[in-house]
């Protein structure tokens, strides 16, 4: 995480409305990860163990019925099922290019959201807003 600018990450839509105190609780949970071309990040139906935020790269979200859309905007989220019941991924996600992401372990993230209602409300609201703008929802 030390390679990234926390102030810039704080300005991502999903984190923008957090107070400094809330941000201080979320920031230590973030991990900086790298993805490879063709890497499968998420599989539909599997237990949603990780929540991702795009830093760089192009990612394909695809469903078992062959529909797909792609995400590449910095700050967009992948794997929202990690914090929303039934905690199962609803799509597959494949990295089309090499990429960089922030990841949060779903269990830790969920524990934090459950322990802090105000923080949970803000983040889930932002996640829902992001999902509503997705071209395909199953």
């Amino acid at each position, binding site marked *: 995480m030390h390679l990234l600018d926390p102030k810039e990450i704080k300005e991502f839509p999903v984190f923008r409305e957090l107070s400094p105190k809330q941000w201080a609780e979320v920031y230590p949970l973030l991990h900086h990860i790298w993805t*490879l071309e063709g890497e499968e990040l998420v599989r539909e139906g599997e237990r949603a163990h990780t929540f991702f935020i795009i830093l760089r790269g*192009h990612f394909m979200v695809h*469903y078992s019925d*062959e529909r*797909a*859309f*792609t995400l*590449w905007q910095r700050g967009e989220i992948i794997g929202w099922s990690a914090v929303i019941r039934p905690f199962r991924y609803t799509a597959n996600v494949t990295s*089309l*290019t090499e990429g960089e992401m922030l990841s949060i372990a779903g269990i830790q993230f969920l524990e934090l959201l459950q322990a802090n209602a105000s923080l949970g409300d803000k983040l889930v609201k932002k996640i829902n807003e992001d999902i509503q703008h997705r071209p395909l929802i199953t």
Partner: protein
Amino acid sequence: MQHNGFSMAAVGITIVFTALVTLSLIISQLHKLLTFWDNRAAWKQKIFRMFGPQEEEAGPAPHVYHVPGSPESARQFCLLIQATGEPFSLPGLLRTAEACGIRHPYAKASRLIEEHLIIPDQKGFYVWNHAEYDRPAKRSR
């Protein structure tokens, strides 16, 4: 002559044990090599940051990694799409491209999407942008 056998045995044992110790040292350190291989992308980034140009000099980093543009890629994908028909499934196209032996099909498809040669039909499928591909500048690539 009587002592030759002992000497040879001693040399043999020494060679075998030296080889075994060397082998065990290599095996004991193998996990470091594997860790390095697993995190090669991260190491590449670190090395680039250490020896590459400073960010201020290089300007803001692009948000998407690119593979070098290739007119061949566009032609290959155009032919594949003609064969499979439109609209097509993006994951299906990538599977076909892999089966046909096209190198880096994911990165190439990404590039074609960025260049608006592969465009979504808003129903979850994709079509080839013939108008864009047939533009003189694109055709000459």
